[in-house]
């Protein structure tokens, strides 16, 4: 069987959280659940005669993002009109960028087990987001079968940056990790909240495969509107399987736009791309070219801090890559650096119990958290979890949790263990018959009897010993 190599390129849309919209002075509601059509004006409703005025902040932030992606900043960028017909596009065209985008030719470093992977950035350009259409009377809010549709123009005109990568991504997991790292970069630049589930970060994937050794590209398909990191990886994986199977059967792949259905784990046809859309691009005559001044570029460069990728590499000298990546892309690495103690232990707690508790790392007292983590084996698990949950409070002190110690003394535990064995005859029999999983249940019973204060490791050891008798 031939070995197939995935060839994946990503197109990412990021909504900028500027105060106002891209081309008018309407408040950029940015994700807020506002009443529909309350953030509109004649400009973003495309009334006759209205003209766009570009948002300076959006241009600056796009430049800042471009610099973080290692891009060239165009000395004279152009806006173009991109035409298509849909009620979410009131002018009948979207103001976007075409052949001279603000940012181009960059690269983004993704740390991996096998060293740095460089994902090429073709371009990052600035445009306006479309409005939202809502369909009623059909199934699941889809347009097919709907009786009527309404348009909410609050989102229309939100500044939107489109980032296009080279087809350098080689696996579904790499795509997911790239996207998570890119998201963290955008969040740290302070230009977007970049939340996939809310649509302020959106990802499309161009997917094709080729036989190992082939240098050209085969026909690609486009996976549209994937709305979680997991689905990015799952969707691409499903599409890779489909393409491989097709080629193995001797079939061809058609150029299509696909939709990933997470419920079924399969891709479905959205529309055929046999006839390429004709957007009739031409330079927007209502706007003059954008010429970013050098002082502005310098100021933006100064605002770009150490990039998340570099921080992962730095942390990797202390802890495993996946932990380092997890800390950085979850925004917990700064806290990690502040918390004293065993590096692996701190990282593990931050990525597990601390993450599960959903605490904002920002205001945490690192010294106190360090004390808690250091003592985690000597205090009861429930007490530890309770303490972690409280660690975000301003007056958190580890002291009051450290007093409660776990029961490690066998003489104290044995009577409880004996009681549990006596009370669970059936389970004991099935364990002796070879069902070892039952041990966990018995440990649990002991933990319950001791209100979680027993050391589970010792309980487990004692139980095993007694059951062997």
């Amino acid at each position, binding site marked *: 069987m031939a070995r197939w190599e995935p060839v994946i390129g990503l197109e990412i849309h990021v909504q900028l959280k500027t105060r106002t919209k891209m081309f008018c002075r309407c408040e950029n509601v940015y994700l807020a659940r506002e009443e529909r059509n309350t953030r509109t004006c*004649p400009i973003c*409703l*495309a*009334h*006759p*005669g*209205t*003209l*766009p*005025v*570009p948002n300076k902040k959006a241009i600056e932030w796009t430049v800042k993002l471009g610099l973080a992606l290692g891009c060239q900043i165009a000395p004279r960028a152009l806006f173009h*009109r991109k*035409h298509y*017909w*849909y*009620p979410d596009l*009131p*002018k*009948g*065209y979207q103001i976007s960028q075409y052949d001279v985008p603000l940012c181009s030719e960059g690269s983004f470093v993704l740390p991996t087990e096998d060293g740095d992977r460089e994902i090429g950035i073709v371009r990052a350009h600035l445009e306006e987001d479309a409005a939202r259409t809502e369909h009623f009377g059909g199934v699941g809010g889809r347009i097919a079968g709907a009786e009527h*549709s309404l*348009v909410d123009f609050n989102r229309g005109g939100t500044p939107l940056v489109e980032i296009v990568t080279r087809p350098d991504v080689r696996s579904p997991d790499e795509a997911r990790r790239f996207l998570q790292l890119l998201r963290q970069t955008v969040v740290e630049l302070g230009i977007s909240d970049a939340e996939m589930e809310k649509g302020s970060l959106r990802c499309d994937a161009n997917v094709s495969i080729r036989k190992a050794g082939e240098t050209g590209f085969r026909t690609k398909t486009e996976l549209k509107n994937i709305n979680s990191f997991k689905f990015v990886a799952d969707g691409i994986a499903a599409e890779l399987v489909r393409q491989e199977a097709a080629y193995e059967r001797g079939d061809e792949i058609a150029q299509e736009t696909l939709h990933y259905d997470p419920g079924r784990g399969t891709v479905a046809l959205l529309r055929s791309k046999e006839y*390429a859309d*004709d*957007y*009739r*691009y*031409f330079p927007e*005559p*209502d*706007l*003059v070219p954008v010429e970013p001044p050098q002082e502005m570029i310098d100021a933006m460069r100064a605002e770009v801090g150490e990039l998340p990728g570099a921080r992962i590499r730095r942390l990797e000298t202390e802890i495993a890559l996946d932990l380092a990546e997890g800390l950085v892309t979850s925004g917990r690495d700064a806290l990690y650096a502040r918390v004293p103690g065993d590096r692996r232990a701190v990282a593990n707690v931050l990525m597990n119990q601390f993450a599960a508790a959903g605490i904002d790392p920002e205001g945490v007292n690192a010294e106190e958290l360090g004390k808690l983590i250091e003592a985690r084996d000597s205090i009861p698990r429930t007490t530890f979890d309770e303490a972690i949950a409280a660690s975000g409070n301003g007056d958190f002190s580890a002291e009051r949790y450290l007093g409660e110690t776990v029961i490690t003394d066998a003489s104290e535990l044995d009577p409880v263990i004996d009681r549990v064995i006596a009370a669970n005859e059936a389970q004991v029999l099935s364990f002796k018959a070879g069902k070892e999983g039952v041990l966990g249940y018995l440990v649990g019973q002991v933990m319950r009897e001791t209100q979680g204060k027993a050391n589970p490791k010792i309980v487990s050891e004692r139980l095993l010993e007694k059951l062997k008798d």
Partner: protein
Amino acid sequence: MIDTLRLTAEDAAGLLERKEASGQELTRAYLDAIEQRDSELHAYLHVVGETGDGVPIAHKDLVTTKGIPTTAGSRILEGYIPVFDSTVAARCKEAGLPVLGKTNMDEFAMGSSTENSAYGPSHNPWDPERVPGGSSGGSAAAVAGGLAPWALGSDTGGSIKQPASLCGLVGLRPTYGTVSRYGIVAFASSLDQIGPITKTVRDNALLYKIVAGRDPCDSTTVDLPQAVEIPEAEDLRGIRIGIPKELNEAEGIEPGVSEQVQKAIALAEELGAEVGETTLPRSVDYGLPCYYLVAPAEASSNLARYDGVRYGYRTPGDGDLTALYERTRWEGFGAEPKRRILIGTYALSAGYFEAYYGQAQKVRTIISQEHAAAFEDYDLLVSPTSPTVAFKIGEKAENPLAMYLSDLLTIPSNMAGLPGLSIPCGLSDGLPVGLQLIGPQFSENLLFRAGHALERALEFDFVPERLRG
């Protein structure tokens, strides 16, 4: 008794200033004249009749006026009442000019006779069987017919200069970028300019002074390099006037028109101007075809917003989204916009863009360069404004190409973004002939100065012969 036929805007301002008439009396006089003559002239689409402290004004019906219908002569905007003022309307309001009404025009300013208005043509006050020119024909008919002291028009290919010429008035097409397009129903964004249509050059300068200047709502506007001067000079000493051969000898220029223009040029020499021949070898041959790619291409994009979704006409028929678009636009647009949308859509299509729109923009650069070369030797250029005097209603209505030739002499300098002033210079067969003065960018003060001196020497009577008391 106020003689609105004879009264200039400057005269009217004098009456108000000296308190010889109140704003109310002034408006009343124009409303009476409208009542008396507009059934014959059909200069207005909507009469408002506001009163105020200043000289009342008529706006071409593509000048967006808050609370006052603005149709751009199209069925598709029937019933549309804007919620905002265009910048020029706002500036007139700030200057205290009450709105008399909105004037008739070729639909979306596409035409040279007002016969393309969805609401029927306007008639020339000099001969009601003839057209007043277009597309700002309603504004010209209103001023020449004594139904408004002055008016705003818009000029894309000659839509101010040509009707001014055909109605014996003064019309300025300003330098591109000196008057805001914010709130002007767009036809071809890179060419559209608002300008005054008046009885005298001084009136023209007074109104230009009110509307001109940078507008933060229109990114393509600039600060005027010099303040607007109201002309006083009575001679042309020190001014070099070039006669471009191609603009003065083009096929289709009526002998009576040439004769009057030559007499005016001779008079200019008597007034002290230095007159010589010059050449614009390719501007006249290529100007018109080039214009008929650029203007329809931009129009096809600008008119995409009329989709029946948010405002204006919407088909009463039932159906899906495509049916809504198709029927609304089929029923809402007249033949000329449809023709230009088709040409423009084709010119912007993938694979044709470079050959058509792209090539036309290159030719535009050549036209600019040719004019710049001529201005190395001359301060102003001169030619007839229109090849013909006012033609009969219906004469060219069925032949778009013949109609397009009306703008043969105004289009080249428009393509170069240059200002042009048309002043009446005599009669041919009892109908006014217009003289076109073209200057370099931002030469409005010079145009006014030269126009004023010539106007005084020519002693043209702007009151139509048949209406003189």
